[in-house]
């Protein structure tokens, strides 16, 4: 194993980590702020990929416009899903289970609708103009598009950090996380906030889907693969912890990238092994702060 091999794998792991982070951060955001577990989050990722494909191939749009369309489209659909369906079960006894089932039904419906509209064959997207080549530095060759993804991911992470730590809505969201009643008591319009947060989260998912489209082919099954990966990220990072999602994505992305290079057959199993190890040693999430144990 030489240095450039390691460097290439590290960078490609970072690309994967960034995409994972974008998806998982949406998942963890809705859970952290709204206490809603959106099982269908991966389906919004997939929708984003298809919307980007549609914009570029059928409407001849620019890729970056397409990514924006994907984010906005997934966001609007996410808000509709929350507004029309999810909010009907808030506060119901055993809400947690029913949330999972309702969002599970979203998966089934969205996946089939996508199949109806776009068919089952693979779709692919070209990398955007200006990002089709690669650059070589210190003997390491890297596609510029991957570097762009890493850059965008960093930008969004910094932006999210700034919103959460430095702005009032961000601080309110953190302080009252998991507590809708408390939010209400603070004079926040809870239903509207929930819809909005849901929209932001699904937009993040859709955006990630669009960014990933040129790297992976776009298929109706994409949502399920992604949701399971991001679930692992979230389990590793600790559900509802923003930075946990980031670190979890990094760990999983890197492990996966090396696994793909070294044991390609079993790469997808390796993710689970990482998760199981984490569970054995720290079940509340590797990066979650220690909590008071319940009896």
């Amino acid at each position, binding site marked *: 194993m030489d240095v450039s091999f390691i460097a290439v794998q590290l960078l490609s792991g970072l690309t994967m980590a960034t995409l994972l982070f974008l998806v998982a951060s949406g998942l963890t955001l809705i*859970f952290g702020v709204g206490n809603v577990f959106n099982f269908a989050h991966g389906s919004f990722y997939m929708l984003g990929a298809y919307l980007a494909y549609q914009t570029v191939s059928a409407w001849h749009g620019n890729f970056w416009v397409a990514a924006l369309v994907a984010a906005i489209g997934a966001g609007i659909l996410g808000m509709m899903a929350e507004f029309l369906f999810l909010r*009907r079960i808030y506060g119901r006894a055993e809400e947690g289970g029913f949330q999972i*089932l309702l969002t599970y*039904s979203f998966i089934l419906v969205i996946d*089939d609708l996508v199949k109806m509209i776009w068919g089952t064959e693979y779709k692919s997207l070209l990398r955007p103009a200006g990002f089709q080549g690669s650059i070589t530095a210190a003997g390491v060759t890297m596609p510029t598009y991957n570097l762009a993804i890493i850059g965008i991911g960093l930008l969004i992470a910094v932006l999210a950090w700034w919103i959460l730590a430095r702005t009032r809505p961000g601080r309110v969201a953190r302080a009252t996380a998991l507590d809708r009643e408390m939010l209400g008591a603070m004079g926040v319009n809870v239903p509207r906030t929930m819809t909005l947060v849901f929209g932001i989260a699904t937009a993040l998912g859709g955006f990630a889907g669009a960014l990933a489209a040129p790297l992976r082919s776009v298929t109706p099954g994409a949502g399920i693969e992604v949701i399971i990966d991001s679930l692992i990220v979230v*389990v590793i990072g600790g559900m509802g912890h923003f930075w946990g999602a980031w670190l979890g994505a990094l760990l999983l992305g890197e492990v996966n990238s090396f696994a793909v290079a070294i044991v390609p057959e079993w790469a997808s199993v390796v993710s689970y092994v990482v998760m199981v190890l984490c569970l054995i040693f720290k079940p509340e999430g590797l990066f979650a702060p220690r909590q008071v144990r319940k009896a």
Partner: protein
Amino acid sequence: MERDTDLKQAVLWLVVFAAFALVPVATASKYHLLLAAHILLWGLFAVAFNMLWGVTGMLSFGQALYFGLGAYSVGLMVKHVGPGWFLPGLGLGLVCSVILSLAVGLLIIRVSGVFFTVLTLAFGQLAWQITFRWYHFTGGDDGVQGIIPPGILGNGLVYYYFILILVALAIWLMHRLSQSPMGVLLRCVRQNPSRVPFLGQSVRFSQLRIYVVSSFFAALAGSLMAGADNSIHTDMLYWTTSGEVILMSVLGGIGQFFGPFIGAGVLIVLQDVMGAKTEYWPLMIGIVMMVMVLLLPRGLVGEFQALRVRLKSLVASR
């Protein structure tokens, strides 16, 4: 009063059992016999699943793991050792399901709620991945075909009655469990877990116990399914299988012991009627799930009972 419901239950039992026993008399079609066998086995699977969710409040999205484990124990035994090894495979599957569910259970009962669900899903998918990739051992995506039960069980009719008796026995055992002190304890764990330790009982161990029991019966259903279908496939381990068994429970009603069994029957018949016509089966069950969750959360049996209670009180108030 309690004795009275005992009797009613027993009668209901006999009627359902007799109805399934009479299926081969009513129809000579092999296809209908297989349909009835599917209802029995999925019904068993769903009832076992509901001991976890409806009774104890643990929503597992990974019971397909044990269903598949049972099926693959039988299938791989037949494939690698020989056709006569059907029954030992069945036994092995049951033993493995207990060992595996104990190990996995110990890991995952440490978390609750959504986390529990996520972890069950992850372990289920892990098993699916391994089965899918390990081609030369499991047959990968091709599965295993030609699993014929040995000896007299090879006869479809005999095998049907074999299933009927085992399923009836298994469901009866679980019914006894649900009526027993431990059944009450499990319901208590769902309703108010923080009170349970102060009655001198352990929440975690109660959860672990029922996780193992539920997984055991899921494995039984899976292994019998291998013989009924004469084949196994990785789909049995896939997460949509876990999803389907959840849907059956919601459809029938998770608050009633027999709800999931009825749900299984309804869904399988529906699949039989619609499946041939629509390629959009997932869309269908997605919509069914949505309707149940939003409008009929108590399930068909639960809503029916609620309706009956309402009507009764309406009549009484006249």
